[in-house]
């Protein structure tokens, strides 16, 4: 069940994508998204010497707006300006990725973080670098697995081989791929779900769930720009969240039961969607008929 070697490779590969989930995009639009350049350097150039940091820091104490502490909020969605619910500095990433190795044995806990900090050459006290504690570890897991899913499609060509698949098939495959990643930490995952459902953690958990649904639909090649943009994301998020619970109780080989569950739920979601479309069309037809009938009676409609 626990495969430390696979965890290691997954982590390394997942990381590069986790820090920049849209690595495939050209760089130009990303620079717009970041606020003034010297500010973002504080968070990313942690491996440089502290003296170098000084220069950037002094320059940013004068503006009243702090750096990413208050990121620009967008009221719209844009593929060119991906929102990042949380960023990590290099030191934080080092501790977190080292801590992931201890998750199968210690769970998503402070102990795992402490051991990760020790492995990375930090002290026990250095876990103060992660103000949210174990929830930071969970968020990091979610973000890095999401990046890994993206790299599976974009770099490893998950869909390039084999027959051409429909968007629905791709969504199901991606959902299962993502669930299989959680199987590595299956025994600890219920605890993590419990932590995520704590009141203070719900907003970030939900934004991470939305980011996952968004990624899955983008990777599956869904290009909808109408109201179904919302309903599809909600459907994917709901199916994923439900299947996540089923996965933690699934003892069948190769998560067969979970796979069947995903297929059933996705069929349900489609059925509901089809019914809604049917009802809408029916109502639209009846409405236009009524208008036509009224006009034929001489009403000024």
């Amino acid at each position, binding site marked *: 069940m626990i495969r430390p070697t696979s965890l290691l490779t997954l982590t390394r590969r997942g990381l590069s994508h986790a820090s920049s989930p849209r690595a495939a995009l050209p760089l130009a639009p990303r620079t717009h998204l970041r606020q003034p350049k010297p500010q973002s350097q504080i968070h990313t150039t942690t491996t440089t010497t502290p003296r170098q940091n000084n220069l950037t820091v002094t320059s940013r104490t004068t503006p009243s707006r702090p750096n990413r502490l208050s990121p620009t909020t967008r009221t719209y969605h844009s593929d060119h300006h991906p929102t990042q619910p949380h960023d990590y500095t290099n030191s934080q990433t080092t501790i977190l990725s080292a801590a992931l190795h201890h998750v199968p044995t210690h769970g998503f806990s402070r102990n795992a973080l402490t051991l990760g900090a020790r492995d990375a050459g930090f002290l*026990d006290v250095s876990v103060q670098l992660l103000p949210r504690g174990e929830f930071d570890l969970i968020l990091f897991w979610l973000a890095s697995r999401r990046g890994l899913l993206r790299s599976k499609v974009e770099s490893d060509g998950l869909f390039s081989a084999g027959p051409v698949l429909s968007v629905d098939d791709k969504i199901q495959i991606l959902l299962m791929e993502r669930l299989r990643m959680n199987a590595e930490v299956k025994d600890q995952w219920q605890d993590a779900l419990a932590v995520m459902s704590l009141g203070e953690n719900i907003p970030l958990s939900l934004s991470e769930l939305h980011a996952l649904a968004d990624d899955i639909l983008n990777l599956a090649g869904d290009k909808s720009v109408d109201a179904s943009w919302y309903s599809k994301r909600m459907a994917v998020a709901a199916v994923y969240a439900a299947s996540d619970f089923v996965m933690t109780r699934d003892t069948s080989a190769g998560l067969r039961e979970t796979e069947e569950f995903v297929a059933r739920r996705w069929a349900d979601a489609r059925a509901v969607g089809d019914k809604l479309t049917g009802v809408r069309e029916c109502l639209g037809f009846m409405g236009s008929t009524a208008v036509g009938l009224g006009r034929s009676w001489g009403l000024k409609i």
Partner: protein
Amino acid sequence: MSSRSLWRSLQTQTRRRLAVPETPYRCFSCTRQAQAQPPKPTADEERFTHFGFQNVPESQKESMVKTVFSSVASSYDVMNDMMSLGIHRLWKDHFVRSLNPGSALPSRDHDTAGRGWNILDIAGGTGDIAFRMLDHATNINHDAATRVTIADINPDMLAEGKKRSIQTPYYNTNRLAFLEGNAQSMPSIPSNSVDLYTVVFGIRNFTDKQAALNEAFRVLKPGGVFACMEFSKVDNALFNAVYKQWSFSAIPLIGQLVAGDRESYQYLVESIEQFPSQEEFRGMIQKAGFLIPGRGFENLTGGIAAIHKGIKPLN
């Protein structure tokens, strides 16, 4: 007729106001104004610093702060309880709990760091924080190796702490040590030797805060944490008005009634007012070279106090 007399009285009033000699500072009580000697004319290169709302030469601030804390040392706890309505105990408990001192996990074979943390508690004369941290390490994390050095510039506060330590299980053990020294330069503490550096309600009294932060950076091990709790700026305007009213009217009065020392508590509230805001102080911590976790500070009770943290990066 009456308008002319009114006009004249206004005129004289303005003239009179102009004639009032300029006071070197503004404060609610005038006791200190009478007592304080005007700052001696000093050489141009002498630098000035805040002492409450007063500007004093840097060389004098240290001794003035010393006087203040020598006079409040004995009634320190009673006064803290009365001024903060007991909330300071909650803050201190929260501070210690969030730092979670002590290693809960046994040291593994390939771990370089030994078991137990080396904690330096600056300006912790009465041992408030030090005893809490030792209790937490022992009772919560079952770590009997964590040790605390209490450093304070004021021997009276240290004496108070020593007196209190007799009632703790750490008295006369190697887990607790006392050190009299100035936080801006502590040559007796080697570089890269401290896991956790705490300063609770102390840093606003330092003459040169940046120098103290730089010194903290020096003594901390790479990966070590600087943690500071200090009075800060309230973010809610309405609450701020209430709080200011309380601190400028009630606290000096309580000081006068309970400790018989209005001056020291007047200084206390003025020094709180002079302390930089959360964002400015975070900038100072960054300037010393620390990494800032997340937002960098945590407001307590609407910003009356704030916990700041910084982590010394690995090389």
